[in-house]
Structure formats: C-alpha cells, structure tokens
C-alpha cells in the first residue's frame, strides 16, 4: 500500500459516514479540494 507523501497522489479510501452513506476520497477529484482532519477521538 502506498504511503501518504507530500505532492504525491493521496491514497484513496472509502468509509461510510455516520448515517451510512459511503464517502470516497477520489469522488472529489476534479471538483473540490479536501481538508482531511484526522482526529484522535471526541473524549
């Protein structure tokens, strides 16, 4: 698996949002920038 590196293609992923709708990173390609926030947790 490719690693995340600056100026390289972002590794794609799909996760379901908390309402069950799949969200795929590459779906934003060509139309939007994505600010990805990786959280540790809410508590």
């Amino acid at each position, binding site marked *: 698996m490719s690693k995340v590196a600056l100026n390289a293609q972002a590794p794609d992923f799909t996760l379901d*949002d908390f309402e069950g709708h799949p*969200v795929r990173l590459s779906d934003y390609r060509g139309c*939007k920038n994505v600010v990805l*926030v990786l959280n540790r947790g809410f508590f």
Partner: protein
Amino acid sequence: MAQLRRDYDRFVERDAEVIVVGPDDADAFADYWREERLPFIGLPDPSSSVLKRYGQEFNLFKLGRMPAQAIVDKAGRVRYLHYGRSMSDIPSGEQLLDILDELNRQDERAATKRQTTDDTDDTDILRSRR
C-alpha cells in the same frame, strides 16, 4: 471542531470539503455532530484503517494518535500534511484557508496556461510536467 464550524463557509467558498475521520463509532459521531451542529462530513473509522494510513504512529507514551491534517487538491494530490506533536498542536483555520487560496491560485494559473498553449506543440511537454 468549533473553529472548523465557524470557518466552514469560508472553506466552501474556496471549493473545499471538510472531512473529519475519527476512531469513534457511528453513534458517537452522530451524537457529537448533533450536539455541536457540525456542517461537514464525519467518517467513523473504528478499525482505524484510514487513520493508520494517513495519521502518524502511536506516540511513545501510548496515549494514542495525535491529531493530523492533510489537504488534498483537486488533482487528488496531497499538498499539505501536518502531524500534531500534542493534542493542541493543530493548524489554525486561517493557515488552512491560506493554503487553499494558494492552491486555487495555482489551479487558475495552470488553467490559463493550458488555454494559451492549447494550439501549440508544447501541450505534451506541459502534460508531462504536471
């Protein structure tokens, strides 16, 4: 998260979507999103598959992963990566917005360049440089 909520409209103005990934489950996300009235996308990642890939390794004290942020441009490339050294080591909204402004400026310049060179033989060279 409160800061991201405050700045959300300004992210949207810059053609950006905000996606928050965390290790909590869908119910915890739903509760938190309702309580905080968050407008952006929340992705539970209980198996930490994306967090492992995009985040940093667990720190020495086993307190868990520190927060990290990335900006992916419209071409799908990682243009900004920030690994927090502590829970409070988070870039400001202004910093992220500035980066998006710069990315959008670069996009516009590239688009103009493509237009003006469309009918020349340089297009292949340009493509290979992109």
